[in-house]
């Protein structure tokens, strides 16, 4: 590496190290814990019976095993689409209202807090996502196709930026999501607090903004394509250690 580029990389590394201490995502996590236990919605119920895959109310380690197949909905769900199910079945909140809410507002804000709370309980665990169920296997295959699907006026796919190792956009390292190391560098650090805009970003918003930058149309929140892409990343990241909620530029 060029000497100048090396010193730039070192300086950026120091910057990242300095901001790593004190992740404001903790503020969202604290709010999420309250929301999890607080009765809400038309049914005035809490989310404490929400089954994230490990049984009703079990949060510890749940995010590490998502996405997964859920018999009650007969489909593969990621954390956010599963929380939509819980909020609508347990609390009686309209799923469409959650899907349509603008990011950072209304039910999406609730979602941010709850996601921050849930993923904190998988921190330091290893990604352990199954492809045993035929629908899980299928979701992975669909996600892989979506990952390589080029479109839009710039011909971008996810793979354009995240399909090879050692690449950067401007100063930002781009993890190669097709490898185990790269997949965990991405999947293992989102959801995250983003310092550039002072917002907590769920994986749903992370992928939404990827598609925005890809110049694609707007991916519908909670849709199958987002779950499938998550499945592709998570399975590739299997065995890697989770650092959520992360702290990102």
């Amino acid at each position, binding site marked *: 590496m060029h000497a100048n580029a090396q010193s730039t990389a070192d300086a*950026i590394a120091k910057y990242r190290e300095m*901001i790593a201490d004190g992740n404001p995502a903790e503020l969202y996590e604290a709010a999420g814990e309250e929301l999890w236990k607080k009765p809400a919605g038309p049914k005035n119920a809490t989310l404490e019976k929400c089954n994230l895959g490990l049984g009703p109310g079990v949060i510890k380690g749940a995010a590490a095993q998502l996405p997964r197949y859920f018999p009650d909905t007969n489909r593969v769900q990621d954390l956010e689409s599963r929380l939509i199910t819980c909020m609508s079945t347990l609390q009686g909140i309209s799923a469409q209202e959650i899907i349509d809410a603008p990011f950072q507002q209304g039910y999406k804000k609730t979602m941010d807090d709850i996601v921050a709370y849930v993923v904190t309980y998988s921190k330091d665990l290893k990604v352990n996502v199954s492809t045993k169920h035929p629908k899980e296997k299928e979701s992975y295959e669909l996600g892989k196709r979506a990952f390589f699907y080029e479109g839009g006026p710039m011909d971008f796919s996810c793979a354009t930026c995240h399909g090879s190792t050692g690449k950067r956009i401007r100063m930002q390292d781009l993890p190669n999501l097709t490898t185990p190391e790269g997949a965990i560098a991405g999947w293992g650090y989102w959801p995250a607090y983003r310092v*550039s805009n002072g917002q907590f970003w769920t994986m749903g918003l992370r992928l939404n903004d990827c598609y925005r930058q890809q110049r694609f149309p707007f991916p519908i929140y909670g849709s199958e394509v987002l779950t499938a892409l998550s499945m592709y990343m998570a399975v590739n990241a299997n065995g890697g250690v989770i650092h959520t909620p992360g702290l990102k*530029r």
Partner: protein
Amino acid sequence: MNLQRREVLKYTAVFGLMASAGLISSAQAEEWNKAAFEGKTIEDVFSVFGAGSPDKSSAVILNVPEIAENGAVVPVSISTTLKAQQLAILVEKNPNALVAQFFIPTGTEPFVTTRIKMAQTSNVYALVKADGKWSMAAKEIKVTLGGCGG
């Protein structure tokens, strides 16, 4: 609570008296220094502080990254070997130079870390007041454009 007291003090004429009588610390008697925070340049702030033109001192340690990936969050750490009662952070090219000031009572280390916003690449100043005298350290932080810029 102290803030309420500061609020109350704002509307009373007795705080100066209380301070001079040693009933409250000078830090507590201080209210939010509007004039200092509204100063545009570092010189404006120096003048409100009555700091003259502070000497650069190796006793003032300013720990910052050379490059910030984003101007919205720039970590800044100040410490000093002096027995400081007050610390301040200034950014030369921000619309208002003064970012924050910190009051250090006896028993508290003259050290603080926080995160600041920077409008652009600029010199950042750490100001330290010890025994009534101000001294400082300065470093340049480059603010880069991150991400796809979209």
